[in-house]
């Protein structure tokens, strides 16, 4: 920048000073040229005067010769000899700087002196009356001392000198003009550059100012537009800048400036603790974080607000300012209150549920203990009765006692089943990744172990990994496969198929299909009820708890179970399990 300025100043000096110098030079040259012209003209006129005096004296002499002349003519004839030598001397002095001219003047001088001598001789002779001698002298003077050529030489010389000097002066003047023109151009150029640059700088400054103005405007707009109330206060807690949200929340008069904080919002801020905290922020630079306070705002509503404040140092003043933001969390607080209310209700419900569960637990415990004991006693004392009767036991008595004992036995089984069913509805699921394939294989082995002399063709598709309670899902498969084996007992060749389909949402639908007895769809709704049976026990044994357990287990896993069948045409049992997001919970397909 400094170098540029220095360079620019130097250029200006050169461009402005040079024409000045050149102009001064030119005018001096012109003056000198004019002097030279005057000088040359003076030399020439002196020369012509000499020539004129000579000719005039000669012609006067001739007139004297012819006797035609008086005193005046005589004086004219004498004039050359009186004046010419002085003039020639004068001419000499004027041309001292020019040797050539000196030589020419020297020649003129000798010529003129010769002629003057002869003219004086002629005049003397005339005076003596020797008119012929005088004529001869005049003739000699004209013949011997020619001066016209000399005059012409001097004049020519002077003309040539003048010409040369004028040409020189002209050349100098031309050079001067050229330099002037160039510097004028340079000045123009310089001025143009200066004007352009300053224009551009002004433009840039204006642009920057416009931008800054826009940025300020934008931040103002943002400041005014944000929904959070924001305000800036000076060190005495008088308002400096307040956005619309703040103004509206506290009903501030837009025309009033510098309102004390304690007066704002009908004294909403007139809280000693809060004002003390804000003063701490201002004076000790302690930030105020999430200060909860309830303020009655201008609309008469008690609002739960969170106040944040920090000190801001302004650039234009040393005094600190306070930036204050107000966050109205009334709705949030209400919502939180509602949520906690709901939570309390929920906790109440949960505790009710756990009470119910505890009661159920106690109930089933009691069932487990207390219902079984009388059954044991029934069968035990039936036996004691049999022993007591001894020989009096006949076939009938024996049969009755047998029925009593087996009924007690059967009721004990029913109680056990009921307890299992009840337990399936309680307690938490122990979820883990389960390989359905191996679980089905185990269940198949178990189902087959109870039968003999049967041809069973299994067709088990590749099954995935799922997330579930292992014991419960094992019960599902054992029941479904056990049923499939049980209800196909009368088939010559049993066909049991296990397959799976994956639904669009990643849920699985498992199917167990058999070609067994099937059932009438009319009673399908009873299929999954507790102790509900669609076949007589003499046809197919069982107590009707298995499918109830299946439904309960599947339901607890978030799935559902259903079946379709026709009497004599086999049955298809389906159950679904919802998608579970477990990486790698899929086995390789096994053909």
């Amino acid at each position: 920048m400094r170098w540029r300025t220095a360079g620019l100043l130097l250029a200006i000096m050169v461009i402005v000073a040079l024409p000045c110098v050149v102009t001064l030079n030119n005018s001096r040259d012109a003056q000198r040229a004019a002097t030279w012209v005057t000088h040359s003209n003076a030399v020439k006129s002196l020369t012509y005067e000499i020539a004129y005096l000579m000719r005039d004296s000669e012609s006067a002499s001739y007139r004297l010769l012819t006797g035609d002349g008086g005193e005046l003519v005589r004086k004219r004839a004498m004039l050359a000899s009186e004046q010419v030598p002085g003039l020639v001397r004068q001419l000499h002095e004027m041309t001292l700087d020019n040797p050539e001219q000196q030589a020419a003047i020297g020649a003129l001088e000798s010529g003129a002196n010769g002629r003057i001598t002869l003219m004086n001789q002629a005049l003397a002779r005339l005076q003596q009356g020797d008119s012929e001698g005088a004529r001869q002298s005049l003739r000699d003077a004209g013949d011997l001392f020619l001066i016209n050529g000399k005059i012409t030489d001097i004049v020519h010389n002077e003309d040539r000198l003048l010409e040369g000097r004028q040409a020189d002066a002209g050349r100098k003047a031309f050079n001067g003009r050229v330099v002037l023109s160039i510097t004028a151009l340079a000045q123009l150029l310089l001025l143009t550059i200066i004007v352009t640059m300053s224009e551009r700088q002004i433009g840039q400054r204006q642009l920057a100012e416009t931008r800054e103005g826009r940025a300020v405007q934008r931040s103002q707009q943002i400041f005014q537009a944000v929904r959070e109330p924001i305000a800036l206060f000076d060190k005495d807690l008088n308002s400096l800048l307040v956005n619309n949200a703040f103004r509206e929340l506290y009903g501030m008069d837009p025309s009033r400036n510098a309102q004390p904080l304690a007066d704002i919002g009908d004294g909403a801020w007139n809280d000693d603790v809060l004002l003390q905290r804000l003063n701490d922020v201002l004076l000790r630079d302690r930030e105020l974080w999430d200060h909860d306070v309830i303020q009655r705002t201008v609309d008469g509503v008690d609002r739960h607000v969170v106040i944040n404040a920090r000190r801001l140092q302004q650039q234009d003043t040393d005094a600190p300012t306070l930036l204050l933001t107000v966050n109205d969390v009334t709705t949030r607080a209400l919502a939180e209150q509602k949520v906690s209310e709901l939570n309390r209700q929920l906790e109440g419900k949960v505790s009710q549920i756990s009470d119910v569960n505890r009661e159920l637990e106690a109930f089933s415990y009691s069932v487990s203990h207390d219902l079984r004991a009388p059954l044991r006693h029934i069968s035990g004392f039936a036996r004691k009765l049999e022993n007591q009767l001894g020989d009096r036991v006949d076939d009938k008595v024996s049969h009755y006692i047998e029925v009593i004992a087996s009924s007690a036995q059967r009721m004990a089984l029913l109680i056990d089943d009921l307890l299992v069913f009840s337990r399936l509805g309680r307690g938490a699921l122990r979820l883990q990744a389960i390989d359905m394939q191996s679980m089905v294989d185990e269940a198949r082995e178990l189902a087959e172990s109870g039968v003999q002399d049967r041809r069973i063709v299994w067709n088990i598709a590749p099954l995935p990994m799922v997330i579930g309670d292992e014991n419960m899902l094992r019960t599902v498969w054992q029941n479904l496969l056990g049923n499939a084996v049980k209800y196909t007992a009368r088939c010559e060749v049993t066909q049991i198929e296990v397959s799976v389909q994956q639904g669009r949402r990643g849920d699985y639908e498992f199917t167990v299909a058999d070609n067994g007895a099937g059932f009438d769809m009319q009673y399908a709704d009873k299929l999954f009820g507790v102790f509900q049976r669609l076949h007589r026990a003499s046809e197919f044994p069982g107590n009707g708890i298995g499918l109830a357990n299946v439904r309960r287990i599947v339901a607890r896993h978030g799935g559902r179970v259903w079946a379709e069948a026709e009497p004599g045409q086999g049955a298809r049992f389906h159950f679904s399990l919802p998608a579970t997001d477990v990486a790698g919970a899929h086995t390789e397909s096994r053909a």
Partner: protein
Amino acid sequence: MNRKDLRTILLVEDSMADAEMALDALGEAHLANPVVHVEDGVECLDYLYARGAWSSRERGDPAVVLLDIKMPRMNGLDVLTQMRSDERLRRIPVVILSSSREESDLARSWDIGANAYVIKPVDVDQFFEAVRTLGQFWAVLNQGPEKD
């Protein structure tokens, strides 16, 4: 017969019917050991500590305690806990004899130191067989540490 053979079998059972059946079953086992029947947990501890109604009983610990769980006043699990925390009763074999198939009862019994857990079968033959076997095993076959 030495003293060991004469050790009693202590049957703790509140149900008179169950007790009668159990006593029958133990009778069928033809054991020489006397069988003592008490009706709840409190009486069981009275017997074990030889106090109260049992303060004048013959000295000596039972060969085995057949302990029901669900009883009035003090239940079987509390009795077992008390026994296992007492230096003098710690080593007496205890067989839980209960109707309960509840997993929680089984787990808790084993946790607090039962020596066996037998579910009373409803089937009468199984019941007799179970009690008979128990009596024979614990009263005759099982060898506990000699006491001085």
